[in-house]
């Protein structure tokens, strides 16, 4: 049975890694591995939103998929309520899927176009064998009202193509919420929505969090969105977390040179306010078998000989925050 851990941790990730083999040739064995997620550790507290930010290809989506076990980790542990779910299989995995959910980026691709809204939202209930059809219908209707698709009767038997992007994302949220999960991974849930629609969806997610005590892992490339949504932020670069801390602290006073560059690159919607130039060299290198040194070495403006000759720095506590940098 599950061991109860201290109440302040819902989910604890330890040294999580996922390697993808690079297949070269039909019969040859993989010699290279893409280190998509490479030794990542963090915690998520009850009712907390942890933001996972970084550029495309940094491993943030892979991390999200590992946490809800859509992917199986190569190594490491994921403790949810004290129980390690990293290697679950079969019936136990299905049981686990009842407690977590994922919301995807693309509200046009993530909803089956041939299913009605009722079928889509009730699917998790059906898969898990919860309730009769009538009970499910009542529950779906209730959930649709909750996510702002009101009156629910007018949405139940419509198809995704009849809905706008914002409405579809609300359907995706309803589907994730229907089984009362304690933890949801939200992968760029608003990045395909227009500005005037986006705010409503973000507010909805925060309201649902307050009402049902859900925790989110909120994956985004947009730091301004992360600032609005998240209690804490983890910044990822090439499969590693390079900085982790309370949102305002990280944004107002970033410690890692990569976080600094990322923040200074965001355009400022205020013509009277300048921003410092981005101090960063080159482009993101390949994730295949990285050399044993700081992952950020090739692009870092403050790198030293020490950084080149030593392993990637560990994520260490500095003044209430966590940074992986020898020079910060």
């Amino acid at each position, binding site marked *: 049975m599950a061991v109860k851990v201290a109440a302040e941790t819902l989910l604890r990730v330890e040294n999580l890694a996922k390697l993808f083999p690079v297949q070269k040739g039909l019969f040859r064995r993989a010699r290279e591995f893409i280190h998509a997620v490479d030794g990542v550790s963090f915690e998520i507290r009850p009712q907390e939103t942890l933001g996972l930010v970084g550029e*495309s290809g940094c491993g943030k989506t892979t991390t999200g998929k590992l946490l809800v076990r859509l992917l199986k980790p190569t190594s490491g542990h994921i403790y949810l309520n004290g129980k390690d779910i990293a290697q679950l299989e079969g019936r136990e995995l299905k049981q686990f899927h009842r407690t977590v959910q994922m919301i995807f980026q693309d509200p046009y691709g993530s909803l089956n176009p041939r299913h009605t809204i009722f079928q889509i939202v009730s699917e998790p209930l059906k898969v898990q064998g919860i309730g009769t059809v009538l009970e499910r219908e009542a529950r779906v209707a209730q959930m649709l009202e909750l996510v702002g698709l009101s009156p629910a009767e007018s949405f139940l038997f419509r198809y995704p193509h009849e809905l706008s992007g914002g409405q579809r994302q609300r359907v995706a949220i309803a589907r994730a919420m229907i089984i009362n999960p304690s933890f949801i991974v939200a992968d760029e849930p608003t990045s395909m929505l227009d500005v005037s629609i986006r*705010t409503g969806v973000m507010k909805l997610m925060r309201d649902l969090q307050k009402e049902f005590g859900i925790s989110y892992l909120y994956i985004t490339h947009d730091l301004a969105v992360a600032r609005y949504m998240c209690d804490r932020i983890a910044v990822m670069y090439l499969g590693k977390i390079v900085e982790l801390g309370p949102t305002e602290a990280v944004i107002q006073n970033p410690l890692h040179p990569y976080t600094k560059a*990322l923040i200074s690159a965001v355009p400022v*919607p205020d013509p009277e306010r300048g921003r410092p130039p981005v101090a960063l060299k080159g*482009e993101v290198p390949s994730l295949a078998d990285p050399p044993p040194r700081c992952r950020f070495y090739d692009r870092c403006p403050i790198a030293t000989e020490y950084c080149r000759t030593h392993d990637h720095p560990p994520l260490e506590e500095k003044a209430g925050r966590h940074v992986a940098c020898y020079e910060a």
Partner: protein
Amino acid sequence: MALLEVRHLTLHYRTKRGEVNAVDNVSFTLERGEALGIVGESGCGKTTLALAIMRLLPENAYLEGQIFFKERDLLALPEEEMRRVRWKGISMIFQAAMNSLDPVYRVGEQIVEAMRTHEPTISPEAARERVAELFQLVGMSPDLIDRYPHEMSGGMRQRAVIAMALASNPDVIIADEPTTALDVIVQDRILAQLDEIRKRLDMSVIYISHDVGVIAEVSDRVGVMYAGKLVEIGPTAAIFKSPHHPYTAALMSAFPRLHGEKQELLIVPGEPPNLLSPPPGCRFHPRCPYATELCQKQEPLLEPFESTHLAACWHPLLQKRETLRARAG
């Protein structure tokens, strides 16, 4: 006269379900060397406006109005001459163009081919040399000419596409979401480079974007579009400091900020209208906190408030922005 002047441009598509007014009575000017930003949400007509200027429209599109470029009305030109304008006069960087490079040809060859199609007199060697120059201009090593698109990163491919648009030394470049699919660090570099090239070559650029931040940084003047209408236009500083149209103000207050004090975001109720049956009067009135009966009945026209700052609104915001924000709480 301005380099480019769009006068009362209206464009509708005839579809099976009815007429769609994608661009409705839009007028603006663009001076030589100027950067004009067009900002708006998806479906507001900003890309259609660009395609109309280029006259690259499907057969069911109907245009009214005039587009003067170097004092000639583009809508009256024969197709043969319009092709020359598209090459020498106005060139366009299409949205997601970096993904439309042909995967089986080397990137340099594709640019050479485009040049030789329009100017058959250029020798292949001269064209290749020009491509090398262009690569340098956009901040890429000329060694990359012989790479295939899949051997380049997204940022490099986007630079190649910009190089292609610059190949003919056009007077105007229309850049439709030039950095939207790119990461912020790459975006930052490409925007800085485009801006530098514009200043160095005294080119005019029309930037089209949904990103208020990008538009604020790269434009001298900004036009805001909503549901096919240009609802406000003026100098960038004025638009951002004191937006007159409630939609402009809403767009800015809904945009989360990374700098300065953390603020509550504004929720704009409802969604943009279906252009098959736009609301009567002001198209923003069903979502506008200041709408009155007048707004439902009569359409406001774009009128100057300060000499160069125009807005189409019956109840323009002058100092009301704080009130609008207070409502967001």
